[in-house]
């Protein structure tokens, strides 16, 4: 188990999530893609921490990532609920109000 190996695994997780976030039409599925990307970030951060500088501070970054995930989830669900209630659909394609 080396740093490179773990990072490649993390990158793979990240890119699978990226694929999902880019290709899915349903908001909740897009959120799952984002979660998967953050999953890769957690793994990479843990690997950097363990292999490069195992100080206490590094763990705080992991906690922050987990907090970011919860914030993402909560806001995502809230927006999805609002979207679903007002449009009857939760497709990202139908929410293009910001198009230029």
């Amino acid at each position, binding site marked *: 188990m080396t740093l490179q190996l773990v990072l490649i695994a993390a990158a793979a997780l990240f890119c699978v999530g*990226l694929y999902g*976030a*880019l*290709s*899915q039409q349903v908001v909740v599925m*897009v959120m799952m893609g984002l979660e998967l990307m953050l999953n890769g970030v957690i793994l990479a951060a843990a690997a950097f921490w363990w292999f490069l500088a195992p100080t206490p501070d590094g763990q705080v970054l992991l906690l922050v990532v987990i907090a970011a995930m919860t914030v993402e989830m909560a806001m995502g669900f809230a927006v999805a609920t609002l979207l679903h209630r007002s449009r009857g659909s939760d497709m*990202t*394609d139908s*929410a*293009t*109000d*910001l*198009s*230029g």
Partner: protein
Amino acid sequence: MSAAAVNAIGVTSLWLLVGLPALGGIALCITGQRANRMAVPVSLGTAGVTVVSAFVVAFSRPAVEVPFLAGAPFGLAVDGLSAMIVPTVAVVTLAVLVFSAAEGTEAPARFHGLMLIFAAAVAVTATATTLPALLFAWEIMGAMSYALIGFRWREDFRVTAGLTAFITTRTGDLGLYIAAGAALAGGAGLGLANLAAAPSPWRDLIAAGILMAAFGKAAQLPFSFWLSRAMEGPSPVSALLHSAAMVAMGGYLLLRLAPLLEITGWAGPTAAWVGAVTALLLGAVAVAQRDLKQLLAASTAAQLGFVVLAAGIGSVAGGTAHLIAHASTKALLFLAAGAWLSALGTKQLSALRGAAHRWPLVGVTFAVGALSLAGVVPLSLWATKDEVLAGALEASPLLYVVGLAAAALSAAYAGKALVMVWRRPLSNARDEYDTEQPGTRHVGGWERIPLVVLAAGAALSGVLALPPVGNWLRGELGAQSDARPGLLELAGSAVLALLVLGLVAWKRMPQLSWAENWLGLEQATRVLVVTPVLSLSERLACFDDAVLDRGIHAVAREVVRGTRGLARFDDRGLDAAVTATARAGVRAASVAGAADTSGVDAAVEAAARTARLLGSAARRPQTGRLHQYYAQITVVLAVAVVLLLVVR
């Protein structure tokens, strides 16, 4: 019990003394109307515990210190001086709260809450060992006094009275900030005990600031007038704030810092003379008053003049004894006045004629207080005042004479009030009742208890200035060397008091019309400070209107005139030339127009077309589609990373 246990109990009591009323008061104030039913039990319970802890700390003498500001901790300690003051204030607070609970007020939660917060602030002031702690409590005290004087805020004049008191004392408070700043600059530290050690120019500044703050709070000249306005507050408020607590804290501060005043050389005599003059002039003011509470207020300022005089000449024991004796005496008198005010609806002396007959207990206790105030043997203020005057005699005979005259005046105004309330009532007395508020014609049993307790204090606390107890007090305060009154002086002042009393009872008092309006201090302040500031700003506004504005208008007018002349010249001379030129111009213009259309205009239009194209290209990425944004972010980040790698 071990020393550690005693210390622990002492420290706990000190925190209770300071913290419990603060917490209780804040809780009551926050809960507001909903706590009305709880207010009285909470307030009396808190005040009771406070009294117990005040006595505990008076005996155990704890000291605590917690970090507050960098280099300036929040220190509280009980030493000999505060051990005397703290129980006095606590007992008076309890008595006043019992009285006002029995009397009943509107919004009891707010009233008792404010009173409790005020009591906590006083406790902190009396035990503070550092300037930050003192300032903190001093400010709260001022704010609470504002809130309490303006307690019945629906009536405008009461709120204005609160504001007057607040702003006047605040003006004095600036002195405390000056003192704190000077202490920081002087580098001797912010501990109260360290102030005297500050280097010379700073030390003088500190002393000046302290004097200013103390004069403001203690209603000494020239700040005295706020106390008159403060009488608009409820009577219990006057009884606490304007006898035992707030004004007393001004005197207390000077007593505490007497070494500082002494070491500067000039501050001590200044304080002494200001105190003596206040005692004399405000005594005369008191004599002139027709309103009982106004009389008492002026007398408060005058009596605190004795305390300030004591502090100025370094007679700490005398000043302390006078402060304590005056606290219980004056609280008693204010409560009695308050009882009459709520029962008869008036506080005009003429209307109160014979009020003592109606409620003999109130009358008797009032008489005890008034006689004590007059300095009649063996009541309290007689002895304490003489101890102060003994110090004054040592310092300067002239000071002594002024003090003695002030003492005679105090006998005069006390006698005036006393004689009036004990006279036979007139048959048409009823007509003058209820002029200020509807009276209840009733003084309850619970309202009498605090009167009796305070009357006992007013009668007996004179022992603090007499040999056995007095010596002990001197020991506690470390003031063994203070001057003691000789037998001749004691007897002399007693005789003087009796003489003046007799004179007052026998003859009608002369009406000192020049002093009736508090020496016109408030008007003087208005004339000397408020009006100049207002008129200065008005002048500035006028200057702006008259000079700057007019200047601009004049310039504009000149410009218009000049233009008209130029126009005339233009019509006659230039116009012809211009017409000729224009003709040539038109010809040239058609040539230029052709060049413009084919050359410049085309270029501009091309640029516009390009910009439009770029604009619509820039809008294309803004699809509003989430996934396309994600894709763009990914690409841009990737490009950025690659760029970073390549450039580096």
